[in-house]
């Protein structure tokens, strides 16, 4: 994949796949014009970071106006940022697929499944924490793709009955809604599912993915407890409940398939509808002026370079044991089990050293953010720093 040469391209083009390969960068005319116009007004701002921060601030303003998220996802700012983050998302997909050695899934699948999580990324990002949007997004893309791959691997080998035992109530409800069910039908299906999940447990230690259909006795028990709890919900025989639960399993299977998720969710930049741009030029101009006045973007860029230096120095300070373990884990992608075998020590010793290593690095990062950037350390910030550190380590050791 060739990277995009111009600033305008980087904020206005989208990756197109041909089969599993990124083929070309497809420009979106509206985004191109918007970017060109913005660049004409501010010809001296040539850093990618500056524009990422600028569009993020615009997005933030729009969000502050309580724009519904459906509309927010179609805003100019979201789409500029989605274009900007295409490459991070692509590399995250590529890296996670290698880690999972999941040959049956394509990079394109993973990419599509992750890029639709733009709103989650923008909502979670805080430029005051000392990380770039790009690093933060990259961490979220990776964990989203990892979760998706895990789920898909499991879903593909589970029978309907096994699948129903392994999904959360939240997912069951979402799946039924997506399948077009409403109101009391959903309530009845969910109650049937709750009773099924509780009563139909495997009768042996393993083989939980290939569960056979419940026996007539189990169906009878499910029907009995359903009837006891149903209140004003419709009556249902064992046969009806079986039909409902099969329909629920089907809905869940479809819903958890990321291809379908990405079809149902508006794709940034590939939406045929109008892009929304409801910030006045005045508001936008003042955001821009603030940014320039504070030289905020410049400052952030320096901070991000400093983060790098802090972490590189922190690793250099660690003892050989820890450095070795970081190298094997992040650099060579070994599992804890593999490392234990190679080094001839227990897996839990490896695990403890990894925890220790993360603790040392994260602590340095926190101290530096607190003392140099004067960031007030909150539990949320510690969590985010942990996530971004994990991503940083992966990239650092694989570079």
């Amino acid at each position, binding site marked *: 994949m060739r990277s995009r040469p111009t600033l305008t391209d980087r904020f206005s083009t989208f990756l197109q796949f041909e089969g599993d390969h990124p083929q070309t960068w497809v420009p979106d005319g509206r985004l191109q014009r918007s970017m060109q116009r913005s660049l004409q007004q501010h010809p001296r701002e040539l850093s990618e970071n500056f524009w990422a921060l600028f569009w993020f601030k615009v997005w933030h303003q729009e969000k502050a106006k309580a724009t519904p998220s459906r509309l927010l996802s179609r805003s100019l700012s979201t789409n500029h940022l989605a274009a900007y983050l295409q490459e991070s998302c692509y590399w995250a997909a590529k890296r996670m697929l290698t880690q999972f050695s999941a040959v049956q899934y394509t990079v394109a699948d993973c990419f599509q499944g992750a890029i639709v999580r733009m709103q989650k990324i923008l909502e979670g990002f805080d430029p005051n924490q000392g990380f770039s949007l790009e690093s933060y997004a990259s961490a979220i893309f990776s964990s989203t793709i990892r979760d998706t791959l895990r*789920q898909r691997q499991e879903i593909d080998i589970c029978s309907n009955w096994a699948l129903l035992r*392994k999904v959360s109530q*939240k997912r069951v409800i979402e799946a039924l809604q997506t399948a077009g069910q409403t109101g009391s039908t959903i309530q009845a299906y969910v109650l049937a599912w709750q009773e099924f999940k*509780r009563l139909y447990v*495997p009768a042996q230690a393993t083989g939980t993915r290939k569960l056979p259909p419940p026996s007539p006795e189990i169906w009878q028990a499910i029907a009995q407890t359903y009837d006891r709890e149903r209140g004003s919900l419709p009556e249902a025989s064992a046969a009806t409940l079986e039909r409902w639960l099969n329909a629920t399993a089907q809905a869940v299977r479809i819903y958890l398939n990321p291809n379908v998720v990405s079809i149902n969710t508006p794709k940034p930049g590939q939406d045929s509808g109008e892009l929304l741009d409801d910030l006045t030029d005045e508001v936008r101009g003042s955001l821009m002026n603030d940014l320039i006045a504070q030289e905020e973007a410049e400052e952030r860029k320096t901070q991000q370079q400093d983060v790098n230096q802090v972490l590189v120095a922190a690793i250099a300070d660690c003892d050989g044991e820890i450095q070795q373990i970081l190298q094997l884990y992040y650099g060579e992608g070994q599992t804890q089990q593999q490392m234990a075998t190679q080094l001839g020590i227990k897996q*839990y010793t490896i695990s403890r050293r990894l925890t220790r290593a*993360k*603790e040392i690095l*994260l*602590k340095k990062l926190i101290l530096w953010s607190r003392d140099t950037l004067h960031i007030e350390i909150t539990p949320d910030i510690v969590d985010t720093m942990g996530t971004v550190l994990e991503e940083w380590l992966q990239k650092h050791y694989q570079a």
Partner: protein
Amino acid sequence: MFSTATPLSLPQPEQVWRQTNRFRISPDRWTAYLNQLAIAAIQPWLQAEFAQVKPALNSVAQASLWSCTTGTPLLINGQRWVIIPTETIDQDEWSIPQEWVDIPDWAADYYVAVDVNPDGGAEIWGFASHYQIKTLGIYEANDHSYRLSANHLIADLATLRLRQEFCPQPLRAAIAEIPKLTIAHAQNLITRLAALDSAIALRLELPFSTWAGLIAHGGWRQDLHQQRQGLERQPSIGQWLRQGLDQLSTELGWQQVDLQFAAVGARGNGEEPSETVAFTRQLTIAGQSYELQITPLDDSLRFELRNTSLGGLIPGGFRLTLLTEDLEMFEGNQALAESAVEALTLEVALENGEGIVWEVEPTPDAFEREIIRF
């Protein structure tokens, strides 16, 4: 949020499965099985990370708990942790049974979600404190649980420790006391619940506070468990005398001792000594071994706590307490060691069938209240 959860290795599932065959109700057995897998998987990891990891309950009390809800309490470096196995593949939110959050004696400092797949392995999904669950979780009246969004889970131990170091939050949130049940009420409930079809989920049958009042009492929970599994109610001291100790009491550590030789001549009144037999149970308190002995007398029971090592004493500050079945104090129910003493002794007169609950301070390892019936 981390892209790498902490992997754990699963023990032999078949072996663990066999250990759960005492559960006659399938969903209860599955709960016990998943919990045992989770504990077996996380234990070596915990022991590598913490100096002291102990079960908070004995195996008998733990079994009766798993027939009420899922989760296993541990004591880790003096803090209380609850391990909760999860099976869901979508990890958007974590569901924590209300019992672990709102029963004062059960509430813990930290909760750990362990993802268990008997066919695939186990990993630590994340951690949360009681405070986080109470302040950030959403209460679900539907199934008496708290739902915590995955965003609020602490990803790993490094993050957990650093949060405590740099921005400490309280570990516990305030919770209300659970109203106490009378003996009659509790026994009524036990009979009623035990008679329900085994397909019915008991924990959702009663208003939460009534349910909590019942099962927070180890003795009542044991009675409920026994009856629901179709077993005898826990036998009385009289039955112990006539039929010998039952299996459950043996598992709790009760042993019968013959006092005849020791007692000969002690009374000297010509009558056959009534105390020929006693029952003892080993207790571990602060790393030391003690013994609680119950001696049946004509119309009373004598409770005695001793140090089992030769010449060993009961340290000052130890207290032996007897409570009524519904945990009320009564006159003369406590023996306190003002200074180191040889034994703490209490005698209590009882009606036939009346229950008594013993407690020792400091609390013995893996302690759960049991009802001793006369």
